[in-house]
């Protein structure tokens, strides 16, 4: 399985996302913001960082990068896409996910090891977890406060699209403690904390982040098995 990791100017955690995908067992393809070709990848990670220096708004310019035009179309067609931190912001700017990430309520950048509860295991990126599982992964952002109007929030809750919530403290003031959400189809997930920083005992607070990457491999394996069974060429 080939996972593409996009590098925008100002991407910072792109190498870490690539390492995490590799540790999970994927072949990693580095994608360049200026190249619209996805090089046949089966899934895409939009990594953390400050694409284009967070000019205008976080993610506002990255959303118009040539590679994003292809990714937006492919995501609407079912391509699994995980946006981490700045990637989550880009997915919101691209309207692949509802709502927005705003300045942390306390106005500081905050980096801490954060407990989350996995609320939805129905997505391409969380099927390896059990519902209600508590995981520990680092959070680090300055603009990670998730906001949406009440109707959107109610809809996310009702449709089981809140993927993970902060527990034992909300690090940024996100509404309803939301840490991660998904789209209606469950192939696009945006998450503020950083699963790619919790994949090795040596460097992370846990190995819990690995589950996001093994999940997509499992989803892809299932999809390709299904496709083969249906007689289609993948």
């Amino acid at each position, binding site marked *: 399985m080939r996972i593409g990791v996009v590098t925008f*100017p*100002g991407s*910072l*955690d792109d*190498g*870490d996302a690539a*390492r995490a995908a590799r540790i999970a067992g994927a072949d990693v393809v580095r994608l360049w*913001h*200026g190249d619209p070709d996805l090089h046949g990848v089966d899934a895409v990670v939009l990594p*953390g*960082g*400050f694409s*284009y*220096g*967070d*000019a*205008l708004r976080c993610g506002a*310019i990255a959303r*118009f*990068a*040539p590679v994003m035009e292809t990714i937006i179309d492919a995501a609407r067609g079912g391509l699994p896409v995980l946006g981490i931190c700045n990637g989550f912001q880009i997915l919101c700017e691209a309207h692949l996910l509802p709502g927005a990430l705003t300045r942390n*309520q*306390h*106005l*500081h*950048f*905050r*980096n*801490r090891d954060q407990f989350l509860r996995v609320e939805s295991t129905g997505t391409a990126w969380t099927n390896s977890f059990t519902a209600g599982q508590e995981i520990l992964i*680092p959070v*680090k952002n*300055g603009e990670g406060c998730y906001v949406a109007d009440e109707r959107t929030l109610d809809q996310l809750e009702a449709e089981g699209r809140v993927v993970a919530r902060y527990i*034992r*403290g909300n690090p940024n003031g996100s509404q309803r403690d939301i840490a991660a959400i998904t789209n209606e189809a469950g192939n696009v997930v945006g998450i503020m904390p*950083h699963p*790619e*920083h919790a994949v*090795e005992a*040596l*460097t*992370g607070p846990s190995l819990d982040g690995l589950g996001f990457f093994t999940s997509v491999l499992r989803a892809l394996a299932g999809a390709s098995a299904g496709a083969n069974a249906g007689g289609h060429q993948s």
Partner: protein
Amino acid sequence: MTTQPDTATSGAVAPSAGPNQSPSAGKQTGFAATDVLVNEFDGGPDTVQRALSTPEELQPHTELGLKDDEYDRIRQILGRRPTASELAMYSIMWSEHCSYKSSKVHLRQFGEKTPQGTRMLAGIGENAGVVQISDEVAVAFKVESHNHPSFVEPYQGAATGVGGIVRDILAMGARPIAVMDPLRFGAADHPDTARVLPGIVAGIGGYGNCLGLPNIGGEIVFDPTYQGNPLVNALSIGVLPVERLQHKEAAGVGNIVVLLGARTGRDGIGGVSVLASATFDEGAEQRRPSVQVGDPFMEKLLIESCLELYDAGLVAGIQDLGGAGLTCALTETAAAAGAGMRVWLERVPLREASMSPTEILASESQERMLLIVTPENLEAVLGVAEKWGVWATAIGEVTPAGEDGSPGRLLITWNDHVVVDVPPGSLADDGPVYARPIREPADLILIQADKAETLPRPATGDELRATVLRMIASPNLCDKSWVTEQYDRYVLGNTVLAQPEDSGVLRIDERSGAGVALSVDGNGRMARLDPYEGSRFALAEAYRNVAVTGADPIAVTNCLNFGSPEDPAVMWQFAEAVRALADGCLELGTPMTGGNVSFYNQTGAAAIHPTPVVGVLGVFDDVARRIPMGFPAVTGEGDRLFLLGDTEVELSGSEWAWVTHGHLGGRPPKVDLGHEQRLAQMMARASHAGHVSAAHDLSDGGLSQVLVESCLRRNVGAKVALPDDGKSAFVHLFSESTGRVLIAVPRGHDKAFVALAAEYGITCTPLGSTTAEPVLEVRDQFSLPLDEAREAFEGTLPRLFGGAAELANRHGDPEHAADPTAPASPDRGNQVLIAAAAGAAMESAAPIEADGIPAASVAEVKEPVPDEDA
């Protein structure tokens, strides 16, 4: 006459072009003379020709900080009066800031005394020290100060401090991989601290986080001595393949000089340079704030483009532009090669078209590098810059030395006017050198006689318990998460240990696990009591902090923060500190790889405590064997606890004396570097053998502090019994004797560990063991539940700087959430307080003229230590 290279300009073409940069691709970036109004003297640039024809014209050399004899020497070197641009360049390069004229005579000891070793690839005089750690890999590291700008404008001052040191690392050919920040502020509860601290922390975080560099350690120290003179030191470390080491020499006649990175603006003119103190014109309204403004996004692009250029072998020489801007970069690269240089100044891409040649040469705009490239590589270089969306402009070329063997000349024109024609070495290397008078401070003998060992002490268990709680809540010993949570410590995925651990530990090679450990330490109070012993104290502590992780300490760097060199007492402290560090490196057998001097950290006649900050680098063959500071979770029997080293009655200069008595007097604890070295060797052995599950260096606050910290790290309790050796429980808990480490040893390893300590001749005292129950119990004295300790430890900074209510909520303590002393909306509330405090503080705490040096120019010396043979 040389041939003019084709003007080549690469505009940024990111899809992008964020508002940070939107140059029009391919457009000629120079500007015509007719576009420009030049106010220097009477309407035109002051040229060499004009200087020859008006030899007696009065020049503002005094206003620029040059003494009469220095000015006379410039005239002598040039055989005429300097042009306005030349005068500015000499004033910059001969300033304390760049020339090290007061410190040079002392810093020579680092080259003369300290061992150079076989590992050191670049040392003093280079942009950063470079040390080889394996056959293929080297690391570059250096620490630098950005003190004065950070006081004037905390956010940008601190941010550009990070940016500057990162470019130093980059200039050596290394990929920067981490930063650390030793910070010192005035009293924690002083209003001006509430002004500068949040801004400095946010600036360091804002720049470093955006660059994608983990912040892995540092210091946060509060002391009234730094009121009005906060110290913002920044360390960066980078890694490079040995063969990628870069040089600053502008070698190769005919090679092209390329300016890469941000466009040049008026920002930073007169920041740390003496130019600030004098103006050429009446156009004060043109002046921008003198602190540089950072753009970390541009720096990130600059890093990526430089690394791509190095890997493609496209760079013949490189130098970063920091303080003193183009002036420094052009003269140092040319002087280092003994070559000449021809520069067309109008080609420099500008933010403001009306800048004069002098302003262009003096600008300290950030995020710029000067490259020397061969003509055939120019196209490729511009291509890489274009890929990353960074400006790259050919502004000149390398010219030959004189036919008689004399060094080449630096010839700078601006729209066909020759504004500079000088021997570059006269600027870079031949600055004045002063052996300033030194004299021991008159009050020192009295201070040393006033020992802390005679102060009243707590005696009963209850008193000791109360003292422990008071100490761990004191600003210097309390939890620093309020600060460090604003830094990204995870990015790049190689951070093995970060603050609050004793050292930052980074993995460098993912396959072998090879890595490094780094610690920076200083102790201004100890240095005030005795600058020689206090400097050794800092060296010993940094060395020990690296050693306790199991790393092998191999190299040292420094950042020397002092008051005015014109004060003989300060100069004596400086001389003692340098002597101590040079002697110390000699004794430890480790090279001093570089350093930085920051003078004039003083307000009025009151200098800061002498504050030498020492950085020590250690290496790991495999970081998997690193030893953390926190006791591991207890399953079954706890780990055995031992104290390595000897505890003496040494309380002078201690945190206890300061916190409980506001006392500073006596002499610092003794330092035995031989013992420190044996301790380091022993810790490395213990780490290899897996004998140690946790180790924590004893320093500020003594044993009490490390017990609490090691317990709180993973919420693991401990039962200890203090040695019954005639010294009181108080001395055991709060003495700050050096050379000591608290050690946790897994069951089954204790015999081997004790034998190992004996082999190295290190006292190893059993203290007790760790416990699952979250309580710190000191037998016969007191019992302290960790929840209570945590509340004291974690509450202090949020109470001072905002966030107390949130912390209370995390702890599920609604009573504290409603604490009337904590603003209801803590951070917003605090912003208002800070803003209000700032106004008042700026008036009361702004630096006053110090010994005739205008506050604006109180020079921050932040250039590489010059060659000792210069």
